[in-house]
């Protein structure tokens, strides 16, 4: 006993010692430059003696902003234009002083500027632009036959597509949304003719694209800096401010190109420190195993919850009436919320953590289970219900001994659908830095690298297939034999 106490004491001491090094958590958004700047900040903070973590590839501005406000992360790279327009919702670009004052009530500050400007830009293939004589955004007038697809964020932004069209007097009736990572591939393969880009994107050079001149100065300046929590240790703030003015456009493009080439964001960040770093030899199989294990963990926990809550809800919903309509209506409505929107709703409430991903997956898994449980119970013919009642079984015994076994096949089919949906949807966990097979998919989209995307997409597809087979076997093992016979009495 005494020895055990000493052992506990030793663990506690070592944990306390580990905590001597102050922890700082860096966040980043899901595009190459943000990943690189996240890694760069992590290295800088480690040099300053901090235990720095990097939660990378977080879904959208609103989600990463909520994560910063709630303290899930301490800092992340951002751009002045985005802060003015998206976070502070200001109708005009704000100065650094105005931004500092406006962010203070939220407990957030801005670092000094890093030294480069990453503004939005419209890009086309150079050969097509030359052929059509399009060099500036004004030149787009009269070319309404161009196929345009834009990133979802740019389409919705206050400094995005619609205000731009208004300022330049452009009229393109049919403009679709596309993922920023995919847009370059689409542009290269001539599936589209024009998309939005960031002026420091590596692909501009790689794919021989032309940046259309913003001749009316529509785009605000997007000067890069870090947003940080004001309660971050002063030493960490100093370390970040030491980066001020040290990264110009050519250096940033160089790091972006390196990241896309090596698929190693940390290798790219090392360029800034003029450090020789061999490209991390990633064991693909190790990564896949790690991501798959994490994926299964998220799916497993959320499915368990969905079963524990979904089946009773389905039983409740089997009785026709207002409650039934409300339960089915609610679970159906949840299913229609896009995953990014659901995360943006949940992050302010719970934060960036495993629980958020599990709650979202749980909500998406409910509908098939609830609906099939209710439908399975409702489809039991009245004569069986009457027989069960007439025998003198108590309501609970009727449910567990008669109704649920009779509905078991339908319920199991619902669980199967639910698991397959869940496996696909669990890739969204990566949007809030919770890992799983979505991690390589999002990183691959940012890197514009199909190989990396497939490292997540193929295992996820295989998991879904295997899950389908497992459920076919479960159907044989769990469903009472009498229900599988051609049932003439029903």
């Amino acid at each position, binding site marked *: 006993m005494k020895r055990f106490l000493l052992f506990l004491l030793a663990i506690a001491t070592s944990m306390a010692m580990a905590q001597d090094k102050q922890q700082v958590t860096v966040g980043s958004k899901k595009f190459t430059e943000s990943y690189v700047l996240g890694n760069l900040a992590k290295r800088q903070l480690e040099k300053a003696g901090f235990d720095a973590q990097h939660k990378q590839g977080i879904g959208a501005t609103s989600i990463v902003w909520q994560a910063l406000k709630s303290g899930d992360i301490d800092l992340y790279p951002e751009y002045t234009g985005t802060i003015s327009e998206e976070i502070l919702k200001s109708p005009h670009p704000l100065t650094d002083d105005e931004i500092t004052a406006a962010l203070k009530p939220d407990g957030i500050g801005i670092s000094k500027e890093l030294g480069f400007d990453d503004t939005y830009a419209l890009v086309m293939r150079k050969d097509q632009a030359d052929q059509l004589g399009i060099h500036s955004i004004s030149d787009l007038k009269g070319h309404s036959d161009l196929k345009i697809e834009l990133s979802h964020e740019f389409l919705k932004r206050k400094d995005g597509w619609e205000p731009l069209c208004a300022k330049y007097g452009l009229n393109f009736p049919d403009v679709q949304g596309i993922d920023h990572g995919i847009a370059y591939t689409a542009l290269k393969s001539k599936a589209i003719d024009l998309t939005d880009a960031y002026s420091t994107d590596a692909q501009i050079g790689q794919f021989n694209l032309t940046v259309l001149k913003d001749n009316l100065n529509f785009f605000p300046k997007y000067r890069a800096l870090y947003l940080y929590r004001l309660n971050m240790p002063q030493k960490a703030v100093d370390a970040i401010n030491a980066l001020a003015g040290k990264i110009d456009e050519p250096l940033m493009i160089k790091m972006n190109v390196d990241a896309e080439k090596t698929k190693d964001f940390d290798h790219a960040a090392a360029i800034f420190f003029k450090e020789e770093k061999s490209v991390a030899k990633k064991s693909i199989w190790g990564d896949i195993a790690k991501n798959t294990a994490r994926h299964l963990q998220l799916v497993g926990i959320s499915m368990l919850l969905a079963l524990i809550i979904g089946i009773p809800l389905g039983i409740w919903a089997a009785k026709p009436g207002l409650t039934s309509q409300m339960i089915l209506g609610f679970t159906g409505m949840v299913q229609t919320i896009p995953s990014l929107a659901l995360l943006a709703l949940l992050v302010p409430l719970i934060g960036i953590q495993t629980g958020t991903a599990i709650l979202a997956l749980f909500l998406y898994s409910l509908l098939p289970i609830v609906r099939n449980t209710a439908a399975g119970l409702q489809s039991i013919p009245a*004569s*069986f219900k*009457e*027989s*069960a*009642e*007439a*025998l*003198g*079984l*108590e309501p609970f*015994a009727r449910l567990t*001994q*008669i109704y649920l*076994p*009779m509905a*078991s096949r339908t319920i199991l089919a619902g669980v199967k659908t639910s698991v397959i949906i869940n496996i696909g949807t669990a890739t969204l966990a990566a949007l809030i830095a919770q890992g799983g097979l979505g991690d390589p998919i999002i990183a691959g989209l940012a890197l514009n690298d199909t190989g990396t995307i497939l490292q997540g997409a193929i295992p996820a597809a295989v998991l879904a297939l295997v899950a389908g087979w497992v459920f076919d076997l479960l159907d044989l093992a769990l469903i*009472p*034999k*009498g*229900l599988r*016979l*051609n*049932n*003439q*009495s*029903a």
Partner: protein
Amino acid sequence: MIQLENISKNYGDNAALLPLSLAFAEGKTTALIGPSGCGKSTLLRLLMGLIKPSSGQVVFNGAPVPDWIQTRREMGYVVQDGGLFPHLTAQRNVGLMARHLKKPESQIQSKINELCELTRFPKDGLQRFPAELSGGQKQRLSLMRALMLEPQILLLDEPLGALDPMVRVQLQADLKEIFQRLKQTVIFVTHDLAEAGFLSDEIVLMNEGAIVQKGSLKDLQEKPASEFVTKFLSAQRSLVAL
């Protein structure tokens, strides 16, 4: 032993059963008969508490029923299609309630054997699922399940309605023998006058939610209470004549 006091049943504005009182004699077999929608099945469901009366009450062993779950265990019930649970074997269907009430397994087995002989259900069919049994076997099994807890009353809702005529005749004979051997109070619903006359001591003829006449088949034939009784009897007779 069981009686209905001023009982009625309405579904919204529609009266399924007009207020009536009816007592069933102990140890006798009573047939409830009448055209479709006359209220005979409603009456049977009221007797088991499967539906709630709009007025009046059911009196069982001299007192209003306080707890239907307990009371139903004193009653055996057979529905038209047997109502056998498809996920349970024949054996499990019959022993369901006895096992639920934690009766000793040996007692359950000997009772099932005894009932197999009484109802002439083949013992090798006990391990089969309902879907693997013939229509007649299902009704015999359903009867076994109803008799398993040695109920005070046996209620049957068109027990032979879904069977083909050959099986039906055989089962009618077997049922009569069983009723006589058990000396039990039996109430059954049928729309077949010949069946009612063959199996029952007393016939209750119903029409439009009310009792038209109560008595033996002979009473109905010789002293019809109304023109409806004569019409009903002649309709059935002309069927036989065909």
